[in-house]
């Protein structure tokens, strides 16, 4: 059985189900059976899919990140039309309840809009996960991010070790530039 969660609270509430939790951002609707046989892949605990807008364009900010430092792993996964996950968003992602039991849920109070990045980075250091671009969800209208991160939230995220040095610089720069 798969339970649908629309936010961190829903994810936490669904953790007791013991099965797969389909995380979807507001307005996102997944195609039936999008992840298909991948749910039976042994050991895999996170499956991330694509979200496309009304024009059929991929929503880039909801795409997961791959392991840029592991080309051999990326090549092996590509033969199965997948990619190992390094970080993911909860816009269209299947998360096993075990993951929530072991790693909790994204902490929006501490990290603001960076919460999913920080949490998913922690999850993927311990769990196996795949990006399955053949799994597609649709959204009629992509909402802008609800809130901008505060400087303390960005600094906390930077210290959480989820970002590369370049990403830290970029996030701090964009945070400071937005405040001018």
């Amino acid at each position: 059985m798969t339970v649908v969660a629309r936010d961190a609270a829903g994810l936490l509430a669904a953790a007791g189900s013991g099965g797969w939790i389909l995380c979807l951002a507001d307005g996102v609707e997944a195609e039936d059976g999008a992840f298909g046989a991948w749910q039976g892949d042994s050991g895999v605990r996170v499956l991330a899919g694509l979200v496309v807008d009304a024009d059929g364009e991929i929503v880039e900010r909801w795409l997961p990140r791959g392991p840029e430092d592991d080309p051999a792993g990326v090549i092996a996964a590509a033969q199965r039309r997948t990619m190992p996950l390094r970080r993911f968003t909860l816009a269209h992602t299947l998360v096993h309840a075990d993951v929530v039991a072991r790693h909790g849920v994204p902490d929006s109070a501490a990290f603001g809009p960076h919460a999913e990045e920080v949490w998913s980075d922690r999850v993927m250091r311990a769990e196996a996960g795949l990006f399955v671009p053949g799994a597609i969800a649709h959204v009629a209208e992509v909402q802008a991010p609800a809130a901008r991160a505060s400087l303390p939230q960005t600094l906390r995220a930077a210290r959480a070790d989820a970002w590369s040095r370049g990403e830290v610089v970029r996030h701090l720069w964009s945070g400071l530039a937005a405040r001018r």
Partner: protein
Amino acid sequence: VVVTRDRRDLLAGCLERLQGQHHPPDEIVVVDNQSSDGTADMVRERFPDVVLLSLAENVGGAGGFHAGMQAAHDLGHEWLWLMDDDSFPEPDALAALLDGDRRAPPGDPPLVLASQVRWKDGRLHPMNPPWFAWRRRAEMAEGIAAGLLLLRHTTFVSVLIRRAAVDRYGLPLAHYFIWTDDFEYTGRVLRENRGYLVPESVCLHWTPKPHSPVTGTGERFYYFVRNSLLLMRGSSLTTIERAHYARMAAGMTVEFLRNNRWDATARRTIVRGVRDGLRDAVR
């Protein structure tokens, strides 16, 4: 297009593998960089159908690929398959590359298709790592959905270059002599076009050791230093890529110096490379 110099036996092994492809190439062009070990005679005797281009002087790998691609382009071929004489493509390597073209996502056709390059023991060869276009995230995702990996750069070890790339971007820069010429050329072509690594296509790079430019290269490291500077002064990298490349090249230079215990020859090699890299014309 196979570029060779004084490695007759390796070249023979490479040509046997090319002729044994499940989808054999229409024509094979061997560029002989003034070999003195009987390479040309061996090619004429054992591989009479091969087009042999004997150069009057050794122009390095860069000059060899420049000449070979020009010849293959003049012969009218749609795809140019490039490799060194120590490249041993697996029997379905070319068929897999061409299948990659067939299943590429819709849009402009890919200009570059590359094999994964492995050493004898099966690991990815450190001299030929694939550089994926991670920043082009949506295109990368589309590629993965088709079982292909979007490339930003690749090396001239089992890579297919579409004729249109030569028409639009010319040939590799011959004055690089060795190293970085392939990174520069594919970077130039792929900056605004698509190219993919096709995972099912595998080529073994039969070097004695799984070396990279910083290990066991001696004074030839000069070309890495000089060409890296020429590359950064040229047009194949974006500003951010230049910064990343500079950091990577600096790290490799320090590693080279460490490997050589900071001796005077190694230091002179670097100084010459920096001097010429800053002074020579980018072209």
